[in-house]
């Protein structure tokens, strides 16, 4: 098993005819992901490297039976693309787009919750999701992910930061530890899928035996996750929070990553996670080492 996506996931790429969409969409297919179609309004009937292009998500779903979508479109079209996928009945939408206005994100999230409760959005501004050996949607370099083994132990990864997601995958690969699924939830203020959604899935996934969580400064998502872990997660965990040395009041790249009014500090998050029984490392490598210890003890 894996969470959210597996070998049966059929993926559409919204924006497959664009630069980013084509590059990553084709890489996802080369990895083994079932990329069954692309969507670009006005370009229906064309092909990109043998993959058929459709004018709308609805057309593409009808023709291919796709159940997931990879939205690789510019910020101003992102909200529309996500809602179009939801309207067409897509159950899982991955949006990698960076720089979507916060107002659009908030509206889209609430619209999905109300009108399309069966559609899960991952992102925006996220690296995507990979269930190693089965399905890779997004921009992760598949070769850095270690395939899970039938008997385990395998680790589930959830991360707020793109490059730290890769770093986490890499740390585990270096140690020969298999990964069930690795989810990059993204660093924006209103992520479609949050830590808790992923932790709950990992807790219930028989193929996942331990969980690694990568957070960063700003907001209170890690603190909320810590509360959830305390009450609901029995699988062992390791974690790292980026931004221990970040100065207050400065936005560290991500719209979400800012320490303001003494809130959202790395220390506060680390303390909350430690109190919930999570082994917290001071850098990604240390979090990887801690995970290796956890896995060895399973």
């Amino acid at each position, binding site marked *: 098993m894996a969470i959210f996506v597996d070998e049966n996931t059929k993926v559409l790429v919204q924006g497959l005819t664009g630069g980013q969409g084509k590059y990553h969409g084709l890489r996802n297919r080369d990895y083994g992901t079932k990329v069954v179609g692309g969507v670009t309004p006005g370009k229906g009937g064309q092909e990109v490297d043998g993959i058929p292009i459709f004018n709308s998500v609805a057309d593409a779903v009808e023709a291919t039976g796709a159940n997931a979508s990879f939205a690789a479109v510019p910020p101003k079209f992102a909200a529309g693309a996500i809602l179009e996928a939801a309207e067409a009945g897509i159950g899982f939408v991955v949006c990698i787009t960076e720089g979507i206005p916060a107002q659009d994100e*908030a509206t889209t999230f609430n619209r999905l919750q109300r009108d399309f409760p069966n559609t899960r959005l991952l992102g925006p501004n996220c690296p995507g999701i990979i269930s190693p050996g089965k399905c890779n949607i997004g921009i992760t370099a598949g070769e*850095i992910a270690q395939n899970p083994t039938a008997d385990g132990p395998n680790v589930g990864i959830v991360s707020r930061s*793109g*490059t730290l997601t890769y770093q986490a995958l890499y740390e585990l690969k270096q140690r020969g530890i298999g990964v069930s699924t690795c989810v990059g939830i993204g660093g924006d203020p209103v992520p479609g899928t949050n830590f808790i959604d992923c932790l709950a899935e990992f807790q219930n996934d028989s193929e996942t035996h331990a969980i690694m969580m990568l957070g960063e400064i700003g907001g209170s998502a890690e603190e909320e996750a810590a509360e959830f872990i305390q009450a609901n997660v029995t699988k062992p965990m390791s974690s790292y929070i980026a931004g221990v040395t970040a100065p207050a009041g400065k936005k560290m790249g991500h719209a979400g990553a800012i320490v303001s009014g003494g809130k959202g500090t790395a220390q506060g998050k680390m303390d909350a996670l430690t109190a919930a029984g999570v082994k917290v490392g001071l850098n990604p490598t240390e979090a990887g080492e801690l995970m290796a210890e956890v896995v060895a003890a399973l």
Partner: protein
Amino acid sequence: MDLFEYQGKQYFARYDIPVSPGGPADTVDEAVREANNAGYPVVVKAQVQVGGRGKAGGIQLADDEAAVREHAGNILGMDIKGHVVKRVWVERASDIDEEYYVSFTLDRAEKKHLMMLSREGGVEIEVVAEENPDAIVKIHIDPVDGLSAETARTACTDAALPERAIDGATEIIVKLYRCYTEGDCDLAEINPLILKPTGEVHALDAKVTLDDSAEFRHPEWEDFKGLTVMDDREKMAAEKDLQYIGLDGTVGIIANGAGLAMSTLDVVNQVGGSAANFLDIGGGANADVMAGALEVINSDDKVKSIFINIFGGITRGEEVAKGIVEAMGRVVLKAPIVIRLDGTNAEEGRQILLDAGIPEDKLRSEPTMLDAARTAVALAS
């Protein structure tokens, strides 16, 4: 982007939110002109993005032209907590009966907009929240539904605003919500929102933070640029579209992705060094972006070594390497580079660097983030 008070008021005016008549001034003569236009008495207010300007003497009442000359002369050039006043806002003074507080922002935990309204305005809302939390009415607004006038009115009643203030306050709250949403604000705050003896309600101050991501649909924001306080390095980085924050250490940092960049700062710190900056070249950066980043770092005299930490996803290793080679041809780097390159096309990237034949005292490659941090810190000390 944080707006100055006068810019916030100009922005409010676009959404028909009543503010006092006034204008910005960079010189004493301009201040007098604005005062004459607004009508006496006026208030001369320092335009700085830092709290406590009133206590520092940056807000003064002036009854006539002579007083405006005196106060504007004193305030322009004044240093308020490290912020030098380059501009004042001169507006007609208001008679105040009562002061309230209202703001809109995004509640990330609830994923809804949050309105806060209080009868206790004119003081910092954090203080009210601490000392008298019941005095703040909080309402979550689903962005799909928006804010109705009825909800705004109920909030005013709940906040115990006096009857004669409710119509005016309700109207302003609805307009402020429109400004916040359609105007793409991260924060829209009026503190104080005042009730005049005449029964009118209006915005006496404006605190607005715009969402930079929405700039593409707001050509009018162009007017707000140019006055933001940035040091030279930050200015240079902004021109090159790089996420840069100047710090005080000696190890220049370039990384891709905010998380990895923060993590790079952390690791440098843990092995006993200190970062000169935070610099995220973002996803999908090409050779040109990398070359630009190196130029920015190179302009910082404190930098004794440069740590480039790249884990390619959307960013490709060969582009990073090309950028480094290009930058080294374009400018003479004052500090040695230590690079750690992994992820998408990292092999190709490392090969490009090898083929370029850069001597080892200029560029070193390390296999892990920790190794690279140790080397960079050793070179910087």
